[in-house]
């Protein structure tokens, strides 16, 4: 078994891009949004449109470019991202989608976003670690994460997998996971957190009561053990009978990533850690 983190054939970021792109293959004809600091999902969207979901519509964050075909740059709001885009959204356009697409019932609206703190229920915190009035870490703010109660599905990706990121319960709910509060208030057409892509594996959410769900292991990346995942996660994951191994990126995927999507090699510079 190869260790994705030390594999001579591909970088861990390339494996994650492949995994997210294949997931996007289930969203042909859907609409997906990527936030800032999102080189991994940006590359995934480009790869998905080439191979798995040619009818996917996607937004590169606050910069507003729809269906960008530019090469990868650091920032989703860099003006180079607008090259070859089909439309430039302003913030009103973005919030129009952020707020109520769950009511339209035509296509799924999907977010692929990072999180500073993610808990067992898939709630996400961007505001404060510790007491809200006296935080030990003041976070950046809730940004666009309100879409957690309006988008059809939310996928998380993280650049690190440790107990600082994956906590029992977030201190501030920027995006609502599969909590009782969600069950009480959020329209069911808005399904919420669907999967989490980390440097160690892929996870989803399974019911642990009538109204709530807990994060569950789906597959581990090559070379990763279940023990390591448990050690680095701040809560008890649901462990299913069968745990797969995340598929490695194909030659075709790697060629497209390196030659077309990311010729400057930005993915290889990302500080992704276990």
């Amino acid at each position, binding site marked *: 078994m190869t260790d994705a983190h030390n594999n001579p054939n591909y970088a861990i970021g390339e494996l994650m891009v492949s995994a997210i792109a294949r997931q996007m293959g289930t969203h*042909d*004809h859907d*609409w997906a949004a990527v936030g800032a600091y999102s080189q991994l999902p940006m590359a995934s969207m*480009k790869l998905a*449109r*080439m*191979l*798995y*979901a*040619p*009818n996917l*519509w996607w937004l590169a964050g606050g910069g507003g*470019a*729809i269906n960008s*075909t530019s090469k990868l740059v650091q920032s989703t709001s860099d003006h180079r991202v*607008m090259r*070859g*885009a*089909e*439309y*430039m*959204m302003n913030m009103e*356009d973005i*919030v*129009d989608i952020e*707020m*109520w697409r769950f*009511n*339209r*019932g*035509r*296509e799924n609206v999907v977010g692929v976003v990072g999180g500073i703190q993610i808990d067992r229920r898939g709630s996400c915190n961007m505001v404060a670690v510790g007491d809200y009035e006296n935080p030990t870490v003041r976070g950046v703010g809730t940004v666009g994460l309100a879409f957690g109660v*309006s988008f059809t599905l939310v996928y998380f990706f993280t650049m690190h997998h440790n107990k600082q990121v994956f906590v029992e319960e977030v201190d501030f709910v920027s995006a609502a996971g599969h909590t009782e509060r969600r069950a009480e208030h959020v329209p069911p057409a808005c399904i919420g957190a669907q999967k989490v892509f980390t440097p160690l594996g892929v996870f989803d959410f399974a019911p642990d009561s009538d109204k709530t769900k807990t994060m569950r292991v789906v597959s581990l990346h090559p070379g990763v053990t279940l023990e390591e995942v448990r050690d680095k996660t701040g809560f008890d994951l649901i462990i299913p009978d069968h745990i797969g191994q995340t598929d490695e990126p194909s030659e*075709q995927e790697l060629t*497209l990533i390196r030659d*077309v999507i990311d010729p400057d090699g930005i993915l290889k510079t990302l500080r992704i850690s276990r």
Partner: protein
Amino acid sequence: MDPIFLNGKKRQSKLGTLEDAAAMIKDGTQLAFGGLHSHNGPMALIRQIIRQGTKDLHLIANVSAGMPADILIGAECVDTVTVCYIGMEHLGFAPRFRKAAEEKKIRIIDGDEIYYVLGLKAGAVGMPFVPYPPGHEARDNPIYEKTYKRTIDPYTGKEIIVSPAIRPDVAILHVPRADIYGNVVHLGSVVADDLLAKASTHTIVTCDEIVTNDSIRADPHRTTIPGHYIDMVVHVPYGAHPLSCHGIYNHDEDHIKSYVKADITTYLDEYVYGVKGHFEYLEKFGIEHLMGLREQV
């Protein structure tokens, strides 16, 4: 410039026919249409909607509606109409709207530009209603029209007027240009076409010209509606006639004048029921006349 599509997958065209488009509009549909006055109305599609015998529409007339609303009402397709303005601008009243209203054959929701535009904005963004600033108590729309309500502004404690979010089932637009994926380029006024696409569950565009996706990507700032809002694109040259298509041809003022004066049954027999399709309709005018409308002196 669109990426190479591999694995045998292809991006799918949204092209359809006028018949396909009209079939999306069922009896009882809440139907909105774009443009304003004698400009940018989806007239070819409206004629097809009449031709297929659609009934009981709740028509959400555009911000200044003329012939598109009048002919649908005259053809007895309409049960209810949300009104900002229905008239023929410098050509006077819209005669079939006026007659149907005075004879109480249609139900009227008396809105205005705020009711319509901010109602659509609320519909687009998911706000449940539109809260009004003080002042509108002094005019009669919020008094006579029963879909206005009242609630409390919790920042002042005072009662305020609100109007409902508007979420049409289907919006139909005629635009100068679109690509086969639904990306739209207006050459003149956008009016509320962009907002209609956002607020409506389904949106159909008819267009005078189909352009390449490359031309869309060459200047994304010129795209006025992104294709993800569009369900179907129908290529209909002169699809707004006798209205204008901004940037391509002027409105046919003489024909609109003759429409206003005509007996509606005779008019519909000649220009709607009496022709099999859009090009047969255009043949009634001839190429010289139609090309003449492009003169923008």
